[in-house]
């Protein structure tokens, strides 16, 4: 079954993979062909996202549009946080998700045992701590307070971080957010 122009060749390969009853990996491969600038975590992101959608029972016809949308968004946030378990924003996001939906089973075991430490300084030598403090002060001088507050609101867990951590976490969160948007865009494209 030919689907036409070469632009849709990825759709064709995707379709073919189902017709031949192949495994999940071929599906992933098909989606990835559609993605530009693939970075390794996008494959994991897509897989985690789809697994989450499956768990939410997304094909249930009894779901309203809004319920399905919330389930999709939940899976998207969960996938993002799962790919980066060590980041503070990731733990904050996980805590937020579990509070929203009160389903303890969705959290992978690592996140369940992690305590969100907030602004605790690590137990390094005094010199490192002072350097960090000096760096935080220098950053605080550069940044307008208002902008910083907005950023704290946007990045999960941002309220409890010092300025230095905030910037690091912002960078990481931004990367994951971009990747998640790309994954979802490709999925929409594949299904349209």
């Amino acid at each position, binding site marked *: 079954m030919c689907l036409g122009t070469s632009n849709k060749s990825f759709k064709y390969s995707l379709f073919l993979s189902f017709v031949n009853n192949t495994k999940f990996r071929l599906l992933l491969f098909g989606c990835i062909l559609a993605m530009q600038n693939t970075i390794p975590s996008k494959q994991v992101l897509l897989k985690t996202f789809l697994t989450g959608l499956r768990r939410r029972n997304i*094909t249930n016809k009894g779901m309203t549009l809004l319920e399905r949308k919330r389930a999709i*968004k939940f899976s*998207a946030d969960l996938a993002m946080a799962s790919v980066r378990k060590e980041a503070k924003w990731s733990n904050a996001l996980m805590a937020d998700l579990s509070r929203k939906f009160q389903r303890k089973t969705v959290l992978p075991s690592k996140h369940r045992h992690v305590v969100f430490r907030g602004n605790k300084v690590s137990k390094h030598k005094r010199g490192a701590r*002072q350097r960090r403090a000096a760096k935080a002060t220098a950053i605080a001088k550069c940044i307008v307070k208002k902008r910083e507050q907005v950023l704290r609101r946007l990045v999960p867990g941002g309220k409890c971080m010092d300025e230095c951590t905030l910037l690091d976490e912002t960078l990481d969160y*931004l990367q994951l957010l971009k990747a998640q948007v790309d994954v*979802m865009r490709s999925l*929409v494209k594949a*299904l349209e």
Partner: protein
Amino acid sequence: MSSRRSRISEEEINELISKLQSLVPESRRRGSNRASATKLLKETCNYIKSLQQEVDDLSDRLSDLMAGMDNNSAQADIIRSLLSS
């Protein structure tokens, strides 16, 4: 001593700023560090907001697409296979 500490901070800050610049689109502005840092942060905040909004919109879109799957059998097959392996 204090100047050495602040110099290290400056370097690290510049590194963070350049990393942020590479991620945020349309933020290749010239100018002094301070001015561009403020603008960069503004761009970053706006960019994060727009990305979060886009996730929201895409979730809506995906929800629509999956709702309409009864009408189109090829689509339905794809979605079902997607989510039932």
